[in-house]
């Protein structure tokens, strides 16, 4: 904890230092974050500010929303939400040595976490070593989650309520990239901290991988004593788009303690496919992700906790106007739509043979205005239907939200 505060103070001091120097010394390193690149580049594909000759660059983003949603006619009313502020610090330490960190303050600092803090050592473009706090490369959203990149106020449900975005762990691994004309190829592979028993024993009453995020001990001790393996390969063609295939898995449960056997080894497997593309003619941007989860749940436990899950999302963003608007050069007005589906418990009841129905689908049309590529004002409507385990009439949720998100 002391380390977190120290880092935070350092960052604050760096901002204070910036405030006292000639602004001309601030060297903005702009990034057009809407331009395509591999999802694995997302951690570095952010706008940074370099301060004079200081060896560090800093940046960050924030997200805030207004929402008014109701479920089956019951609403909590108007809600103003400060979802998160994230600070980045990057540094080129030396030849072929880079460091980048991402510290996130969620819900008004209710939760402070180091999402990413890793040292990268480049041995060859195809062989880089990474160690520290890493973002496990499962799907695309977990690595490419910055608020200003998206046209929707809420993160995808499948990415946060089925997959555990943002899911980071202490770990080590390798990654590499290769370019050849229109083609890009990238891979990543890590051994890291792991899940724990809470994924099938939690207050959500369903198999819920994000429950493991509450276990802060995982940065010190793996519940099972065995590492989580995460690997991803991605290919991009500049004219077609990027497709990524990823896997994450390992033994999640505490099967032994102090040399004594407590349970069988139980594994979790996650497979994901992600895709993104921009249709050149219409500038339509499409991004999609789908994941499958398989968890070894003891047959003597309750089927409330499913052993198979699947879900994903599809975002379509169509720029409709790009011109000077309200004094902003090259402002862009988009219309967009997100479609989502999650099945938290895929299977049948042993008692009846009937389908287990704990699933959700949601559609979210949106309008967004980007005064610059790094700032977005977004206005969404959500219509969502969520069915309980038994398949009873769905809870229908709907309502409006407005949000802002910007890099700074």
């Amino acid at each position, binding site marked *: 904890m002391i380390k977190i505060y120290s880092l935070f103070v350092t960052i604050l001091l760096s901002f204070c230092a910036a405030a006292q120097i000639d602004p001309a010394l601030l060297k903005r390193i702009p990034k057009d974050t809407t331009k395509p690149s591999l999802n694995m580049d997302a951690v570095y594909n952010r706008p940074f500010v370099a301060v004079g000759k200081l060896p560090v660059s800093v940046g960050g983003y924030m997200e805030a929303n207004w929402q*008014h*949603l*109701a*479920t*089956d*006619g*019951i*609403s909590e009313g*108007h809600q103003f939400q400060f979802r998160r502020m994230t600070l980045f610090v990057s540094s080129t330490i030396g030849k072929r040595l880079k460091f980048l960190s991402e510290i996130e303050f969620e819900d008004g600092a209710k939760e402070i976490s180091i999402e990413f803090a890793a040292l990268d050592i480049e041995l060859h473009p195809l062989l880089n070593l990474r160690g520290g706090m890493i973002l496990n490369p499962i799907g695309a959203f977990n690595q490419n989650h910055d608020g200003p990149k998206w046209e929707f106020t809420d993160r995808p449900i499948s990415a946060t309520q089925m997959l555990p975005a943002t899911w980071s762990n202490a770990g080590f691994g390798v990654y590499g990239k290769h370019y050849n004309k229109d083609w890009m190829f990238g891979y990543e592979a890590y051994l890291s901290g792991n899940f724990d*028993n*809470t994924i*099938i*024993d*939690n*207050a*959500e*009453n369903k198999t819920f991988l994000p429950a493991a995020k509450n276990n802060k001990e995982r940065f010190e001790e793996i519940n099972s004593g065995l590492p989580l393996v995460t690997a991803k390969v991605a290919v991009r063609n500049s004219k077609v788009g990027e497709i990524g295939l990823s896997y994450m898995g390992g033994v999640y*449960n505490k099967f032994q303690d102090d040399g004594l056997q*407590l*349970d069988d080894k*139980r594994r979790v497997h996650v497979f994901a496919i992600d895709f993104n593309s921009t249709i050149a003619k219409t500038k339509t941007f499409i991004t999609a992700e789908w994941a499958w989860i398989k968890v070894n*749940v*003891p047959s*003597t*436990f*309750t*089927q*409330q906790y499913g052993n198979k899950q699947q879900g994903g999302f599809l975002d379509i963003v169509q720029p409709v106007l790009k011109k000077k608007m*309200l004094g902003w050069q090259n402002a862009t007005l988009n219309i967009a739509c997100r479609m989502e589906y999650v099945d938290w418990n895929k299977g049948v*009841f042993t*008692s*009846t043979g*009937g389908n287990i*129905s704990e699933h959700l689908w949601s559609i979210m049309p949106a309008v967004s205005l980007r005064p610059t590529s790094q700032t977005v004002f977004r206005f969404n*409507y959500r219509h969502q239907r969520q069915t*309980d*385990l*038994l*398949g*009873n*009439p769905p809870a*229908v*949720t*709907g*309502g*409006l939200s407005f949000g802002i998100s910007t890099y700074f």
Partner: protein
Amino acid sequence: MKKIYLIPAALVICIAIIQACTKLQPAAPADDEILDGPVAGLSYDQNRQFLAGDIAFNDEIFTSQTGLGSIFVATSCGSCHAGDGKGHPFTTLTRFGQTDSTGNQFLHMGGPQLQNRALPGFSPEQIPAGATFSKFTPPANTGLGFLELVSDADILAMADPNDANGDGISGMPNYAVLPSFATAFSNAIPRNGKYIHRFGKKAAAYNLLHQTVNAYNQDIGITSTFSPQDVYSGLNIDPEVTDNTVRNVVFYLQTLKAPIQRNQIDATVIAGKNIFMQTGCESCHKQTLKTGFSNVAPLSNKTFHPYTDLLLHDMGPGLDDGYTEGTAKTNEWRTPPLWGLGLSPNSQGGQYFLLHDGRAKNIEEAIQMHGGEAAQSKTKFNQLTAADKNALLKFLESL
């Protein structure tokens, strides 16, 4: 200059959107289409307690960290009673014992209830050799506060254990010993130190506190000061739920509204209701009962329509599972209230699972499985014309 007007215009649009946002939201279902929700007329502080109970009942999920198990049937109250309606075979519980009424001889072997699920690394309970058993599908919760307030005198007035009136119906109450934590109703009419119990498939629970404490302990494996024995070890352990939470859940159950009948003025439904009376169904499924005094004004001295007499009846050999509770014989079942019957599919996954163990998949099948004291009514039902049968079923679906 023109752009200055854009600012107030944008503000007006924003205000209009905010004002209109509720129009874009899903509407609440009609009150008669759902079973949950409080009785009308609760005070502010009663509403607060209802909400606290609602959260404890529906939202509090027990885990190994908060006391679940180590052996259990369900992880929360709401797991068994979706929307406060009837439950699904997924959470059907099993009770075991023996055929006579001498008291459960298997209590030292984990009885009376089977905890058929276990936390990872633990083994669930098994039915001991020689035990008989019966499966119980979770009942609906609604209107229970009204049923709790029916006086013993009124229950006894409906009883006819020796069939003195010769109508073939001989309902009797289930007398049992009060649990140590329960206080007898002020108007209770005990017999030989035993009290009339009224809740549960065999009327083995005295009041809603008894029902709630048992459910926490036997269904979820949660101990309380009322019931401190751990179902796994058989030893008394620290309470895993507070007295306050238990009281809030009891209050929640007491103040859930009574189901509201739908299509009451529909001609077919009215005709069906008349047929229901003529075929003798109402001999056990009593239409109207009344509550006594209650400190909760909306429950006090009310007339209501649960379609039960809270008595035990012989339902014939087809429904005899060979398991008994209290003074209830193996073939005796407490008349289940029929209110809310038509909404059962909304909590049972879109279909019916009726009778004590969910064996009947529709209302007519449930009628056909009636025997014993109900055999006469079943015979009369089978003699009805198709139109009359349809009207009767429409009436039952309207409840």
